[in-house]
Structures are given as structure tokens and as C-alpha cells.
């Protein structure tokens, strides 16, 4: 069996409809009998399972992959060498004991420099992986421990787990933003779907996503969601996409069915397969398939 084709759905700005489109794309493949596995790479606020109507069964695996430095206060002599050397602002020292906080990368520099060997680097829980079986397919979700760093690494791990199911396609629902977890989501993928809404805020951030896509040499396509919320801006989006050399996969109108489907805890494909949103998303998905196989 060949390697699965990986499609990542990102947007930059939150709330544009990444998860809605990812979920629809997954149900679209599944209904056509195409093997697909979903990945929820929004590890700080994962929603993909919900958008697919929930999981019928789930099991979890903990991930211990984060390294942090820990001070042994029995040995610490408060010399402050660690405080002076840390580049991450992870070591705090204000009237009292020296404290290592959430910014710690576990690089080990302080441990190396401590003259009394009071600092050790240990491995702590990064988060969990949830394997869920939805009515369409398996979905792998990452859940980052709150306040933790290393979201990028967790994303890599869950993408690897998804590939092991050996499907034809893997659909990755990326997090909002343009940081580490999003970069990890886009890295190694075959196609990047950029979801935008017709506002200057959305395009501003989407441009950064496109930049990341270009760095990784990934093929790209744009989906304009809630296009009717600001029709006068659409020409601007067409120009923007054209200037960047990216094709428009489709335009989806604002549709109450989407929210009602969530509210009923059902996927859009299941709840309102003939709604305007579903029909236009289907067209976009078909266009995407043509681009992938053409």
C-alpha cells in the first residue's frame, strides 16, 4: 500500500470554518467509500470529533514527550547562575527560591551550568492522544496539557498515528494561528486548503499561512467561507489568490444549518446534506479531488 495523501486545512484566523470544512471533507470521502482518517491537530482546543457527530468509542494514550528542568531545592544554593543563563525567561527569581516556570524548553543548559548539580531535566506529560471511531472513520485527536508548550511535537505524533491506519487520505484539521502546531501540521503534507472569510483580518493572517505553505512546497487551494457576509470584498480575495497563484476551490455561504448541526451533535453531511453549505462544500471537495488526481 502506498503512502496516504495528506490534506491539511488551515486558516490562520480562528472561527473561519476550518473544522466545519475538515469534517465535511472527511464525511465526503467516507460516503464515497474512500479510506480516510481524520486528525485533530488543534491540540489546545480540539473540536473535530464534535463536528463529525461525536465518537462511538474512544480510547486514550498518554504522551510523555516534554522535557523540563527541575530544581532539587535540597541542593540549590541560590547562586543564580541558572537565572542568568536561561534564554527563555523560564527561570524566575524574585525574593525567594528560584523557580522554573512554564516557559521551560528542557534544553538542559541550566542543568549543565549548575555548580552543585541541583538541576535535572525530566520528562513530563505533554498531553494525550484520543483515538475515536466516528460513524465515518477513525479520528486521531491530540489534547495538550493546559499551559504546556510542545504542541508541535504532539501534532507530529498524531499525524504518524493516523498514517498507521493506512488509509488513502489523511485530513488534518489544523489549529488557528501560524505558530508551531500549525507549521507541524503543514509540514510533510501533500495539499493545503486555506479557509478564508471575506474580511481583511482573515486575508492578513491567511497570507502567512500561504507563506508557510510555499516554504514547504505544498500545493494549495482556497475555500471562501461565509462569502455572503461581505460580498464587496470578494474581488479583493480573487485578486489576492490570483497574485499568489492559488486556485479557489469553492465558496460557501453562511448557512444556519451548520450551527444547527453542531447543536444537534450531528455532522452537516448527516443533518443537512442538501443545505446550501453542504452543496457548495461538496463542490469544493470534488474540485479538490480533481486537483489531487489530475
Amino acid at each position, binding site marked *: 500500500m*502506498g*503512502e496516504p495523501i495528506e490534506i491539511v486545512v488551515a486558516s490562520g484566523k480562528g472561527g473561519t470554518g476550518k473544522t466545519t470544512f475538515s469534517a465535511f471533507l472527511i464525511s465526503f470521502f467516507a460516503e464515497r467509500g474512500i479510506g480516510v482518517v481524520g486528525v485533530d491537530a488543534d491540540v489546545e482546543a480540539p473540536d473535530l470529533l464534535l463536528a463529525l457527530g461525536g465518537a462511538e468509542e474512544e480510547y486514550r494514550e498518554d504522551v510523555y*514527550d516534554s522535557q523540563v528542568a527541575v530544581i532539587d531545592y535540597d541542593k540549590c544554593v541560590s547562586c543564580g547562575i541558572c537565572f542568568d543563563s536561561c534564554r527563555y525567561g523560564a527561570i524566575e527569581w524574585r525574593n525567594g527560591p528560584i523557580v522554573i516556570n512554564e516557559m521551560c524548553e528542557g534544553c538542559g543548559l541550566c542543568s549543565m551550568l549548575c555548580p552543585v548539580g541541583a538541576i535535572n531535566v525530566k520528562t513530563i506529560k505533554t498531553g494525550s492522544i484520543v483515538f475515536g471511531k466516528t460513524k465515518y472513520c477513525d479520528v486521531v485527536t491530540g489534547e495538550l496539557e493546559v499551559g504546556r508548550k510542545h504542541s*508541535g*511535537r504532539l501534532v507530529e505524533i498524531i499525524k*504518524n498515528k493516523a*498514517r498507521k491506519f493506512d488509509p488513502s487520505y489523511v485530513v488534518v484539521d489544523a489549529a488557528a494561528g501560524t505558530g508551531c502546531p500549525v507549521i507541524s501540521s503543514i509540514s510533510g503534507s501533500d495539499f493545503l486548503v486555506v479557509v478564508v472569510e471575506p474580511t481583511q483580518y482573515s486575508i492578513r493572517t491567511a497570507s502567512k499561512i500561504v507563506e508557510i505553505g510555499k*516554504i*514547504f*512546497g505544498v500545493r494549495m487551494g482556497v475555500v471562501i467561507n461565509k462569502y455572503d457576509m461581505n460580498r464587496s470584498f470578494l474581488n479583493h480575495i480573487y485578486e489576492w489568490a490570483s497574485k499568489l497563484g492559488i486556485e479557489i476551490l469553492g465558496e460557501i455561504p453562511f448557512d444556519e444549518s451548520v450551527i444547527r448541526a453542531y447543536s444537534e451533535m450531528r455532522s452537516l453531511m448527516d443533518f443537512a446534506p442538501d443545505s446550501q453549505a453542504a452543496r457548495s462544500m461538496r463542490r469544493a471537495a470534488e474540485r479538490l479531488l480533481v486537483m489531487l488526481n489530475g
Partner: protein
Amino acid sequence: MKIAVALENNNGLDSIVAYRFARAPFFAIIEVENGKVKKLEIIPNSYGGGARGVGPAVANWLANMGVKIVVGPHIGPNAAMALRNLGVEFRQVSSGTRLAEVMRILGFSM
């Protein structure tokens, strides 16, 4: 000259090219002289499970072993940059290709 091929499994000449370069479970290290293979061994990739910078870590490891050409499926920008900086050439061969076929493509005989 040494050549490394990223492999998905260890099944001798029937091993197949890996799906991902840096996290390939095995590498075939082939020593070639005058177009003929002098030595071939398949070793596990101990850097494949790393947290970050896996591409460069593997590139470093292979380069320090004396590898001059690396064969694998597509590689990301970091691995590409690392190989370039190390003066190691990269040749792309589709994942799933048998090792025997790779050798034929490269023009070496046993």
C-alpha cells in the same frame, strides 16, 4: 563511495523505500567501488524517533559515516538544507520501490 537508502523494512534486496525520509526505520548503507557493490548492510535508524530536527540529525549521522549520496522519498526543507550543507547529494526515488530496483536505477551491480 557510500550510498544510503531510506528503507521502510529490512527484507534484504526486497526491502522497500520508506514513506518518510527522516523517520525511516532502516537505512541500507551500500559501499560501491568502480560501479560494483563491495558491501551492503541494513541498519536501524536510531535518530528516527527524535522529537525535533530529525531530518538534520539523520543527515549529520549519515554524513559522518561517509555517505555521499542519500536516496529516499521526498524530503522537507530542513533535511534538504542539512544535506546540502553537508555536501551530500540527494536522489529521489518513490516510496515502495524495491531496493534491488533502486540499485538498478543507480546503475550498480552486485
